[in-house]
């Protein structure tokens, strides 16, 4: 980024810490710029307060987290997926975000482009939740001549700066265009003015912040389904996708199902209904079972977390053995 952005009329700045990086991209976003920052481990924790500010002020921004083992300084740099709940719930209060999980270099490219489009469309922080394995991976990729670009919808004349349209998303009042918008992390009304003691104003605002994302979860959803009639289904995102792919490759047939998620938040629970014969969901993750817990909320059959800690991927054999465990 430091090499390429200045040559593309962009701006790169190395701030003094991750708190400041998150702050600076939010400030830059209000000038209409597309913005991103990247981090791993403790830096992600430092960003949390301002991520909440971005959610509250509906500021489009992209945050890349190349996850490593935690808690604390943990394992720089070994792979993990331990921040999947932190990216969803890490700042205080209720809000929703979007999180995408690449499993290859090609997806790193494609999902980064999509992350910017989603951020601009929904006016929300979008997380690219990769891990050290994908982050350090080298693979051949195809870079298209052009990628689809969904631009921010500018605030229409006559509309208040935080007055939502039918899709629950307000037009964006870019700084410097005469909108005279006041942006605050305080609970605010449709004018953007602080209004902290009216229970109704707070409830309406926070419900909208959540619903503009959750109501759109089936549109935002991005997943692949393999062998929908299987009884045992792997669900994976990020680097563990590669191990499941190896298992499917080595054990051809229709008896192993696979739900491969690229969008993890908002969680696309409809994807789980694509497996009518499902007897069990198996969830290999590089954490103690963070998304397995989410899947449990949505299905009536057993969900088995297959945690792997320490930085290595599950081996294909480890996953095959989970299929053989007597039920």
């Amino acid at each position, binding site marked *: 980024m430091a090499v390429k952005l200045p040559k593309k009329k962009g701006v790169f700045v190395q*701030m*003094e810490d991750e708190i*400041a990086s998150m702050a600076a991209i939010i400030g830059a976003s*209000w000038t209409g710029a597309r913005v991103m920052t990247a981090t791993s481990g403790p830096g992600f924790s430092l960003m949390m307060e301002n991520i909440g500010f971005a959610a509250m002020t509906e500021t489009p921004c992209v945050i890349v987290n190349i996850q490593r083992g935690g808690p604390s300084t943990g394992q720089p740099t070994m792979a993990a997926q331990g921040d999947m709940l932190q990216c969803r719930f890490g700042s205080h209060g209720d809000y929703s975000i979007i999180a995408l999980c690449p499993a290859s270099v090609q997806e790193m490219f494609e999902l980064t482009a999509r992350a910017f489009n989603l951020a601009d469309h929904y006016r929300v922080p979008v997380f690219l939740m990769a891990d050290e394995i994908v982050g350090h991976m080298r693979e051949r990729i195809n870079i298209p001549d052009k990628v689809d670009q969904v631009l921010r919808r500018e605030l229409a004349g006559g509309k208040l700066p935080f007055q939502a349209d039918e899709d629950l998303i307000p037009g964006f009042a870019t700084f410097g265009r005469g909108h005279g918008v006041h*942006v605050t992390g305080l609970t605010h009304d449709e004018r953007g003015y602080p209004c902290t003691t009216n229970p109704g104003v707070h409830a309406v605002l926070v419900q909208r912040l959540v619903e503009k994302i959750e109501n759109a979860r089936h549109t935002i959803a991005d997943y692949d389904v393999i062998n929908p009639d299987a009884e045992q289904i792997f669900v994976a995102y990020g680097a563990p996708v590669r191990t499941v792919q190896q298992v499917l490759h080595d054990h051809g047939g229709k008896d192993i199902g696979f739900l491969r998620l690229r969008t993890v938040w908002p969680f696309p629970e409809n994807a789980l209904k694509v497996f009518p014969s499902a007897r069990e969901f198996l969830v290999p993750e590089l954490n103690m079972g963070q998304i397995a817990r989410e899947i449990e909320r949505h299905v009536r059959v057993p969900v088995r977390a297959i945690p792997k800690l320490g930085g290595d991927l599950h081996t294909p054999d480890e996953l095959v053995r989970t299929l053989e465990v007597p039920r």
Partner: protein
Amino acid sequence: MSFEDWFRKDRLPHIYCAGCGNGTVINCTLAAVEEMGWKKEETAFVSGIGCSSRAPGYIVTDSLHTTHGRALAFATGVKLANPSLNIVVFTGDGDLAAIGGNHFIHACRRNIDMTVVCMNNQIYGMTGGQGSPTTPIGCLSTTTPYGCAEPPFDLCELAIAAGANYVARWTSYHVKELERAVKAGLEMQGFSFIEAMVQCPTYFGRRNKFKEVTDQVEYLKTHAILRAKRDRMLEKGERMPEDMFIIGELARRNRPAMGVKL
């Protein structure tokens, strides 16, 4: 046009206590902005958290009321992404010097082109009167009930040491001087820092034996010493009394600046 045209009148009444010095500083700042002839759509106000930081909410331009201590980091992002915007930051002693201390020195070091007006009331006013990094030794607050035992920061010395191009300190008594200092800051390229010592009758004055608002303003007036006078005292070998503070223009230089409009 007058400075009053910069206010959002539909947001009145404001939150400031009777006798608060912040309104004076906001008036002086807007008067200076008005004198610059800046267009409203080319100007943005940024702030953090605290009494001082509520100011942008009363101003008609685009404004960003951010998280505690982080105003300068947000403002850096705004300015680097769109250098054609004129940026003015309102902050206070707690916001700038405690939680935001790191961003303060780094914004000075980058010498990023913006003007920062700090309302130093020597206390956390909004949260109920806790001691701040500028509470003088011996002063009472809810967290220094036996008198503040920690030495305070000199914010201007900090800004100078860290590299700001323009640094000045005045008080809510020195209205004309303060306005001129803010204007000088707005005219300068690079980081301009103007510290305004202000009275906080509700939390500082009440606990520290200032019966009337005017007593505290009088204190600021009589304990402020012009830089030139201080320099003359030092030449004569006299010492400046410890309860006095320096006012006036304290730095003006031309270090290379970031974020300057081309």
